């Protein structure tokens, strides 16, 4: 479908597609198999200015529009969801700085991210706190003009590979979620180390690690916003990044649909390609329809955000829920169309199925997001009474 992208968006999408096809496709199976972080591709993406896409122009970026970022994530995910998230997690790591950071912080960090010379990550989740962000245990205690961090973050995308972390920690545990603050912690800060690298079902090219803080001191100027604003920064950050996860889901599904169509045309049973079977045709039709609906929603939400709208949290959640559930269905169906071959690692669809699963889970499980959407729906009705 024609989405009336502007010239820059077409350029961004086309180049991301070229990188995906020429550089990522030949490597994706190996990186998935070895659980290897895609440094080579990250370098290519940096050289191609892809890290500038999500950074505002004032900080050596190309505008920082949400739709542009979604287009890159979608194209990369079409080839490999794991590589795509290694890229996209940088945008997530930057969002607190872009929207809540001081001028000094932006000037210091954003150009480094824009050039791709330093990767970023966002650290919220702990063993006892994911969706329940108020239950964070990592503490940041003010001492001698700085903050001393103690605690462990879990499942942090780009953990270990990134050099700039935005970490959510409790500056005042007595206030619950109102006592959380966001801080920049750079790799190599004394007291900051990495725990085990997780072994995952999907997105295996990406790195997921524990961050361990033991009396890790950062200077006062590393506080993003003000003390106690950590929770609201987190909520706003993830609201903005959800269309990216949705775009990842759309890209994975697009890759799966294309593989399924190619296979269905090639695979001959009973003397005909299986694409001649109406059972298969209807599966393909449903996959294509669901996919296009998800894409349309994701692009609409991204454009809404780019228009400067403030009230997009619900729509962003809807896009993430809808696109990720769609991607799971489409990749499962792609495996089904491939039959026995689909279950084998020689073909790419089983990886897409594994990669799709995470999109239903991270940046808010689809269940917790449905709670939020339902709350908004009911609230709107109540307000009319």
């Amino acid at each position: 479908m024609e989405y009336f992208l502007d010239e820059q968006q077409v350029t961004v999408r086309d180049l991301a597609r070229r990188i995906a096809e020429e550089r990522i496709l030949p490597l994706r199976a190996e990186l998935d198999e070895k659980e290897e972080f895609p440094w080579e591709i990250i370098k290519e993406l940096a050289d191609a200015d892809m890290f500038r896409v999500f950074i505002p122009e004032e900080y050596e970026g190309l505008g920082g529009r949400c739709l542009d970022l979604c287009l890159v994530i979608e194209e990369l995910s079409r080839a490999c969801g794991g590589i795509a998230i290694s890229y996209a997690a940088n945008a997530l790591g930057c969002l607190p700085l872009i929207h809540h950071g001081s001028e000094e912080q932006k000037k210091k960090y954003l150009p480094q991210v824009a050039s791709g010379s330093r990767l970023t990550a966002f650290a919220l989740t702990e063993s006892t706190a994911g969706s329940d962000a108020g239950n964070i245990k990592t503490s940041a205690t003010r001492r001698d003009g700085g903050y001393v961090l103690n605690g462990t973050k879990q499942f942090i995308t780009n953990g270990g590979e990134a050099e700039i972390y935005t970490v959510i920690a409790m500056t005042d545990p007595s206030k619950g979620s109102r006592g959380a603050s966001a801080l920049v912690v750079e790799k190599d800060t004394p007291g900051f180390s990495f725990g085990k690298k997780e072994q995952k079902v999907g997105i295996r090219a990406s790195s997921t690690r524990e961050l361990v803080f033991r009396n890790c001191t950062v200077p006062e100027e590393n506080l993003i916003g003000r003390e106690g604003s950590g929770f609201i920064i987190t909520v706003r950050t993830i609201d903005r990044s959800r269309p990216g996860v949705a775009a990842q889901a759309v890209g994975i599904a697009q890759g799966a649909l294309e593989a399924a169509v190619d296979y269905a045309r090639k695979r001959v049973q009973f003397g005909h390609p299986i694409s001649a079977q109406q059972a298969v045709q209807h599966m393909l039709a449903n996959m294509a329809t669901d996919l296009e609906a998800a894409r349309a929603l994701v692009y609409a939400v991204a454009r809404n955000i780019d228009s400067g709208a403030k009230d997009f949290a619900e729509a962003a959640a809807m896009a993430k829920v809808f696109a990720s559930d769609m991607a799971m269905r489409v990749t499962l169906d792609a495996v089904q169309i491939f039959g026995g071959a689909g279950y084998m690692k020689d073909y790419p669809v089983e990886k897409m199925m594994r990669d799709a699963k995470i999109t239903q889970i991270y940046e808010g499980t689809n269940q917790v997001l449905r709670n939020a959407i339902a709350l908004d729906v009911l609230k709107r009705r109540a307000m009319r009474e």
Partner: protein
Amino acid sequence: MNVVVCMKQVPESVTISGVPQGTASVRPQGKMVINPFDMYALEEGIRLKERYGGRVTAISMGPAEAEEALKEAIALGIGEAVLVCDPILEHSDTLATSYVLARCIERLERPDIVICGRQATDGDTGQVAPQLAEQLGLPFLSYVSRIEDISDGRLTAQRLVDEGHQVVQVSLPAVISVVKEINEPRLPSLRGLMQAKKAEIPRWTAPDLGLDVSKVGLDGSPTRVVNVFVPQRSQQGQMLEGSPESQVDQLLEKLRDAKVI
């Protein structure tokens, strides 16, 4: 370091119609692209600029549409580009083409190195680079597979030759042709692509270059193509059937009969 890269726009692929041995016609198919071998020349030019500073300029002789290829070069990181474009240059053979490119290069700031791809995928001659060196009165190094060092006005490079590789030194300025082994061409960058969209490519005509018109185009070309045809490819082949053992035995018998083993 001042580098000039010569490049050509070629069809990505062609449709050739005609019966074997009969007169054929060639039609470009798909889009026009930078000659694949020239991608290595462009990449090496950009790397030299990154390594030694200075400037790198891409030049091409061709129709107005070849501007697109030069813009692609700019998107890759080539600083400047010039298109030599004039209807009277059409049908120039390699001698006439090398004459035109030489006059164009003489108009630019004197280069230290002129880099060409080893051949273009349409004509497949590989002649323009050495002939350009002659027209410029410069030394020439073909099939360069690695630039080792540039210092004291000399270039040390590896060349791919029949036996393997040679290490050769040449005094600069010089013309070189490069092979695919030399590098892996980069993809363009977003900023490069945006810059390329805005770039104005100067177009130089025959009068701009003060060309002797008797040396260009069909009149200036000593060679003429009198016929193009599709090669007779299939020597009626024979499929060897049976078990692997039997296939191998049949094959060896055939080869022994042909006295080739």
